[in-house]
């Protein structure tokens, strides 16, 4: 359903700081795939997600969703197909707007925005129900400004916003990295639940190899703008951290010290 064909992205081309972030990258996701993405810093994981989301233009290659070429579409037009959750919990919500207003914005993703009311009474019931499923007590705070919520709550709300109007593809960019371990586990569990219930095709970046193994049906490892490992099905189920670490080191050479740190 998602297809990246020979995508290349070079930051600061022609300068001494030129960096090939995506190097002739090709990837095909099948309907309902839940793919975890791992790789060291600068491997190109976030760049790949941002290229799909249209945050910047790619230098060559093409990106297709369900066969439709979206390479030339601006970010706001691609949003019709995508649900996105960011690493920074502050990035996914509008802090000065009410919780229900944020959800109403998300419900209208991909729709023409005209002079109809920005929120209707009927929707509130839906929001209350969906918020109840988060089990954070947010269903009573529809009129609270989102800026008053905690980082974990905001991330959970962003996740809900990303899936409220079912997207074709869900992009989770290290969305639990900025949260404390307990909240991170909760948000991750929530992500799992949403993906499993709705079968949205999902790309999830994580720095945690244990999570990468435990979640999803497919795992890809990136290094220097390439995909160096692509495991799915039974093979992924039997994967252990030490297998992964070995493969990680084999592909990235001297990065060994880094991932030992990550794994603690």
């Amino acid at each position, binding site marked *: 359903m998602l297809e990246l064909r020979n995508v290349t992205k070079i930051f600061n081309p022609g300068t001494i700081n030129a960096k090939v972030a995506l190097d002739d990258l090709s990837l095909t996701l099948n309907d309902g795939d839940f793919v975890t993405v791992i790789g060291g810093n600068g491997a190109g994981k976030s760049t790949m997600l941002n290229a799909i989301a249209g945050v910047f233009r790619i230098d060559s290659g093409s990106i297709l969703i369900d066969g439709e070429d979206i390479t030339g579409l601006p970010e706001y037009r691609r*949003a019709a197909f995508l649900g996105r959750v*960011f690493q920074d919990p502050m*990035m996914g919500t509008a*802090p000065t707007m009410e919780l229900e*207003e944020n959800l109403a914005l998300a419900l209208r993703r991909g729709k023409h925005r005209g002079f109809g009311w920005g929120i209707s009474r009927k929707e509130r019931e839906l929001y209350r129900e969906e918020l109840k499923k988060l089990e954070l007590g947010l269903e009573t705070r529809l009129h609270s400004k989102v800026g008053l919520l905690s980082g974990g709550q905001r991330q959970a709300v962003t996740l809900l916003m990303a899936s409220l109007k079912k997207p074709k593809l869900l992009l989770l960019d290290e969305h639990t990295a900025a949260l404390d371990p307990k909240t991170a586990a909760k948000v991750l569990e929530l992500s799992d639940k949403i993906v499993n219930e709705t079968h949205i095709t999902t790309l999830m970046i994580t720095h945690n190899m244990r999570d990468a193994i435990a979640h999803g049906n497919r795992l890809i490892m990136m290094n220097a703008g390439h995909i160096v490992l692509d495991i799915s099905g039974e093979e992924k189920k039997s994967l252990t951290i030490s297998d992964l670490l070995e493969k990680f080191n084999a592909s990235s050479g001297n990065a060994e010290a880094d991932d030992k740190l990550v794994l603690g």
Partner: protein
Amino acid sequence: MGFITSLFNAMPGAVAQGLIWGIMAIGVYITYRILDLADLTVDGSLCTGGAVCVILTLNGVPVGVAIVCAFIAGLLAGLVTGLLHTVCGIPAILAGILTQLALYSVNLHIMGFGTANGSKANLPISVDKYDLLLSSRFVRDLSLRNPLVILVLLFIVLIPVTYCFFGTELGCALRATGANGNMARAQGINTNFSKVLGLMLSNALVALSGALLSQYQGFSDINMGRGAIVIGLAAVIIGEVIFSKVFRNFALKLLSAVLGAVIYYIVIQFVLKLGLSTDDLKLLTAVVVALFLAIPHFKGKLGSGKMKKAAGKETGANA
């Protein structure tokens, strides 16, 4: 006693002027508070509104149509700034300054329309010869042509309309753009379009304010918009400082900007009656606005300073 009487006599005029600038303050509220952009176009578009309104009225256009044309001229001024900002990638504040500068020449030519050299810095219009919507002449009249009555009626329409607009899907998109552009794009909002639309609406209101101001004072002048952005900000900030605890609803926030403008003009009248020279008004305004803008900053610093001290004490107690 004489001071109080003369101050009292000046009140209706001050309130009328404040209400006219209140329209402008709503425009500034849209860019500064909702879109989070400081738009300096307004210094030019205020005069554009006045110039368009006066020149059209002088040329026999009905005053209502002239006011609508002034509104449209403001939309266009905002469009230019918006395109410079979004399409050309110029920082908003600089885009506004560029449009404002260009409007200086444009305004001279609008007012000089039909004259020998095609340029004029001041254009009088007499309420005796033309059927103007409002004039300072009637500010103490007990009749429907009193500008205070007309202005209050205008706000009874303008504030609910603005309120409803920002409650629509389009209006919500504008608010989301100002609150978090990144999130807005991720939810499919064309933030560039939002910004251009917001700048257009804002400048249209500013031009409307200029059109009414020129009728009220009986002339349009190339310098009538000088420092307008600062007066608009003063109105928004004064309104917030005084009413923010009571007025939480969005419509009331718009009203507080209008009341802020009225309070600003009352205070100005007061200091003028105390003997301040009109030449020093802009200096005073700038100082007042700078103070009000600085207060939240210093409050924040002071707050964190206190927290540090408290934290220090706590660790001291633990030790």
